[in-house]
């Protein structure tokens, strides 16, 4: 097991009368790509700012290598940040921006020049030393910002929605590159985003947050396949969420039918919620499935069709490559392993 680098213990934060963090507990490991994921206002950026040292927690602890640092100012932390809008210094050129931290440390000029050019090479901006940062494209500015942070050789790099301002194609490209850079420098990245696809494709670990609380921590596949509650299921990917009860281990009831499943460990007759991912559902002939309904709407999504089927109890969303015309009577088929049973959430 890797070493714990940062531990957040019972962090809370209040701005005026508003509580934005309600007891965050989180361990962050060395060499890990960890993503804080959640809708805006969920507290993910605040958590990041507390780790960086820009905000102080109202209560709780931040441990770095086991040492409490919540009162240590940002300039004394071995942590660097890539900001949302890059926050480059517009009156300095590319090289001087990157060298900013090194100059403050009064490092030797030739050493600085060497480090700067190595960084530029890593982020793919060789020969850009004397360029004016304000004339660079968004993607290039982002690379400068990353180089400016990494040149200080921090133990942790914090990234606050760094790709938010880029267009879709460069975004994809930068995602791959970021992951590559992380592997190359071998340090911990803590990444903040509200984009679930970005989170799933880059991270070693994803922390889903909502309303100042952590909803679930896990690997991308765990988060997707085994959402712990309705919020996570709803926020990550698309879901059909159905209320039902657990009759006994491996047997669940919803919409008036009973189904075999792979879940166990719930009390008998416990009210639960079931997640059925749209891509796990198949359209079949009505007599081949328990649940039947009528096709209400079909949308072409590129790789697949999104088909809305109305049954007696609800509407289901199905993602399938098979076409079914509107008005047709169909059955919905799925296997035991496609059913994911969750504890029912309280007020949400």
């Amino acid at each position, binding site marked *: 097991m890797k070493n714990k680098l940062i531990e957040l213990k019972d962090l809370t934060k209040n701005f005026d009368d508003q509580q934005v963090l309600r007891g965050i507990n989180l361990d962050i490991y060395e060499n890990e790509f960890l993503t804080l994921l959640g809708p805006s206002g969920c507290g993910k950026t605040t958590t990041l700012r507390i780790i960086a040292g*820009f905000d102080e927690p109202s209560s709780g602890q931040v441990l770095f290598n086991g040492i409490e640092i919540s009162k240590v100012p940002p300039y004394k932390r071995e942590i*660097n940040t890539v900001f949302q809008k890059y926050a480059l210094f517009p009156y300095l050129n590319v090289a001087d921006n990157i060298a*900013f931290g090194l100059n403050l440390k009064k490092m030797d000029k030739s050493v600085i020049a060497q480090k700067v050019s190595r960084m530029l090479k890593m982020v793919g901006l060789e020969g850009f030393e004397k360029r004016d940062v304000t004339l660079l494209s968004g993607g290039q500015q982002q690379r400068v910002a990353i180089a400016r942070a990494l040149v200080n050789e921090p133990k942790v790099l914090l990234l606050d929605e760094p790709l938010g301002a880029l267009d879709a194609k460069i975004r994809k490209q930068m995602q791959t590159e970021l992951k590559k850079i992380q592997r190359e420098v071998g340090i911990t990245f803590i990444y903040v985003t509200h984009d679930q696809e970005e989170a799933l494709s880059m991270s070693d670990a994803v922390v889903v947050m909502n309303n100042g609380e952590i909803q679930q921590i896990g690997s991308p596949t765990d988060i997707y396949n085994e959402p712990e509650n309705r919020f996570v299921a709803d926020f990550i990917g698309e879901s059909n969420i159905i209320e039902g009860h657990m009759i006994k281990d491996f047997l669940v009831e919803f919409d008036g039918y009973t189904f075999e499943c792979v879940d166990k460990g719930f009390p008998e007759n416990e009210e639960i919620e079931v997640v059925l991912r749209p891509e796990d559902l198949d359209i079949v002939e009505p007599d081949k499935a328990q649940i039947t309904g009528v096709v209400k709407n079909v949308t072409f999504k590129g790789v697949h069709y999104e088909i809305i089927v109305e049954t007696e109890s609800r509407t289901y969303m199905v993602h399938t490559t098979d076409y079914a015309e509107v008005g047709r009577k169909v059955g919905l088929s799925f296997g035991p392993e496609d059913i994911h049973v969750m504890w029912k959430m309280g007020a949400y």
Partner: protein
Amino acid sequence: MKKKSFFTRFYVVICLAFFYLPILVTMIFSFNSSKSLTNFTGFSLRWYEELLNNVEVYKAVYVSLSIAILATVISTVLGTITAIGLSRSRKVVRELLLNVNNFPILNPEIVTAIGLMLLFSSIGMRKGYTTMLLAHIAFCTPYVITSVYPKVRSLDPNLANAAMDLGATPYQALTKVILPMIKEGVFAGALLAFTMSFDDFVISYFVSGNGVKNISIVVYNMTKRINPTINALSTIVIVVIILVLLAANIVPHLRKKSLNRNHRRNTVIAVVLVAALCTLMIRMGITANGKHVLKVYNAGEYMDLSLLEQFEEEYNCTVVYETFESNEMMYTKLAAGETYDVLIPSDYMIERLIKEDYLQYLDWDLIPNKKNLMEDVVNKRYDPGNRYSCPYFWGTVGILYDTTVVDPEDLDDGWELLRNPKYNGDLYMYDSERDSFMIALKALGYSMNTTDFDEIDAAYEWLIEQRDTMAPIYAGDDVIDNMISGNKALAVVYSGDASYIISENEDLDYLTPSQGTNVWYDAMVITRDCSETDLAHAFINFMISEESALSNTAEVGYTPTVSSAFEEMKESDYAGISSYVPQIENPKNEIFGYQEPKVKQRYAELWTKVKAQ
């Protein structure tokens, strides 16, 4: 298209002319060889020379410059820090403070001035260099905030965080990141502060004291008499401001061109220079030398200033000499708690000061030169027995007329000469409510101190009728220059001014109207709070010595209260100038008395109507 461009150009020319012609005229007349402000008689550097010999001007330039530099530096630092702080405050605090910050900018300057004056008085601060500097910092800072704040707001709030994230301390973040990015705003604020401070008059005038004067105050005091040194001084001030602006616009370009290699060393040099300058200035600003100090408050251009130096030498003391524009202004300062030792106000004001207990008895035993005083000037109704006051200058109000235009027979009409249609459009009235009502009341045969509203209303009718039939110009001190140039045939003037004007233009003569006039006395008094009573008495005694009185009247042109000086001048410099010898035998003559507030208010209302054409 062409038409439009012509119009645009025309408009620009008009605007420029409107802005710059007055400045140009000032500059041209600073090179005039004669004293006139309207006739250019030839090129000379005479007024610049006079300026060079004027110690008061030197001191004022030093005060203006040093205050402007110090106030600029301090208010720029304060304002910039405040603006940065504000940008990070909570919205409520920020908006509240920004609005509060606008008050001093929107407030009429005079309100700020009086507020500051009262503040300094109430906390017992000695007025002078320090109070002026504090006031300048106070009124400059809001301008700096206003010019820096938008710059700070336009910054990405994460820039400072980014700097600290990269290892900068908060101070380094400020100097290495924030300041370079808002420097245009800071610079603009500093420039604004400098120009505001350098040419400020109103606030400086009220908060300064103890003889500390900036250029504006000195210029203001000079305007009482035409004195083209003002033009010379104004020209220099304009040139300084132009140079500052040019430097402000050119230096950044030059710096951009040269590589910023010596940037750091330059900064160090600049900081050291400013610091050295500051200490030097503060040092020079508070030179107290332990001598006895006498504070004298007199009307502007109303003393031979070399007498002050003589007195200082003779009595080994320092005289702090300040001047006022009107008796009312003097009263305002006094009422606000300003302290002086010797005042030289007019008769009716002395009456008021006695009534309100501002003065102390004179000890005539300490003034042996009282034997020099003429009999005509003592024991008058404003101070029977001269228990409080020692006469300084005196005279009458009368009509100055052009002998080449005015028919001698018309002179018998006295004040009615001012309503003689022959001279329609050819006269100046004096822009003073009390003097104008005096003329009308005397013309109608009433007392000029009447409290009878019917009589006052009748005088008002007289003035209205005169206004409508004669089209007079209600002039101030500019009448002096205009009459010397012979611009109009008639003018109401004080006898002392008349003597000076006649000595410059021999075509003119002075008439003391037969219906009686205002006989006035200005006198020296000692305040109740005076802490240097012996010195104050010595000063009064000194001023009525035969020698002092002589050089004083020679310089100022008003009629002295010392007989020997009067007799000598009457026979020499002012021989044949009728206004120099006040005609006071007429029993209809009077001295202004203290005005009850309701009477004063009535005067003010009616006078406003007279002047509203």
